[in-house]
């Protein structure tokens, strides 16, 4: 099968999109889990502050989520723009 330049770029961008989102999800997944774990620990020690702790947990997770969203953006760019 003849493979031309444009075809290689298309194939590479599809595979690249999969790898970008797949590998990019590992870090935020583990990181957000750690934040959740520590929030549970802190609420266990000090149930009175549950509201504040949940809020802090969500803010922290939102920040760790950002790299996951970068991966999603890059994957979508590779899929639809390149």
């Amino acid at each position, binding site marked *: *099968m003849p*493979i031309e330049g444009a*075809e*290689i770029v*298309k*194939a*590479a961008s*599809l*595979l*690249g*999109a*999969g*790898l970008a*989102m*797949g*590998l*990019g*999800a*590992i*870090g*935020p*997944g*583990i*990181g*957000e*889990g*750690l*934040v*959740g*774990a*520590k*929030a*549970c*620990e802190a*609420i*266990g*020690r000090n*149930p009175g502050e*549950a509201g504040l*702790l*949940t809020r802090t*947990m*969500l803010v922290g*997770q*939102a920040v760790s*989520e950002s790299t*996951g*969203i970068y*991966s*999603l953006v890059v*994957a*979508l760019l590779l*899929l639809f723009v390149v």
Partner: protein
Amino acid sequence: MGLGAIGAALGEGYTAGLANEGLALRPKKSGDILKNMLVGQAVAESAAIFALVIAVLLLFLGTETPYLLKASAVLAAGLSMGFGAFGSGVGAGFPAGQASLGISRQPAMSGSLSTNMLIGSAVCQTPAILAMVVALLLIFSDFSSMPLFPTWAALLGAGLSTGLAAIGSGVGGGLAAGASCEGIARQPLSLGNVTTTMLVGQAVSQTPAIFGLLISFILLFSGFPESTALSAAMAPLGAGLCMGFGGIGPGIGNGLTAEEAVRWVARNLENTGGLTRTMLVGQAVAQSTAIYAMVVSLVLIFVI
């Protein structure tokens, strides 16, 4: 098989280590501790045994239909089972180790600890079982009517999707189960609440493996139109890799959250409701990246 054996060995090593610690603490209970250690290790070993079964099947398989397609299917089956057994092997080691240590701390609870360990490690095994289902489908389904291009890539993607995603869920489920055995040994009264929280947390940790299975099934059975273009093959392969890798992080992360929630339910029983709620909120956020990965996989399969 090799990957599967690494996981089981790590898990069993952890179990034996904690069992020895338990023996040092309470030598009189050596019989109970040894018995529990062996039962727990047997469960961790089962993941490696699944891998062995698949490896033996692969070795003695006839190669009748299109040679390359079959090669791709059996390679995918091996990868699926190998990666899948890795996570479950490591994961099942955590509850077994903590239960063995727990029996030495709280010998009166040895029955409940063993039961809880078995429930927890059974859930850890499910990702390995999902991976085995995919591996068996890859080995025994008849793909000869499908076009070689791009089905080879879809089959490889199907194996990688469930296999890799199962690593996270296996380890994550194990973390939650380990903390529950530790918690029951610390506070025997917490048995009911701890087991419930563990099961809820493990159920959420299992979802990435289930997403992986979903993508595998779509890749296996959707039947791609024949195309020799390279991009037609890279799309399903990319989808499998995306969901597979994407499932690892959320699986482990959900497990970490569940572990800590279960640990603190055992220490602070009256706060079970609040902890379970926080655990679920935290897990939902950690889950989001697995959902992004699934969306990208589905786009790669159906839109491109």
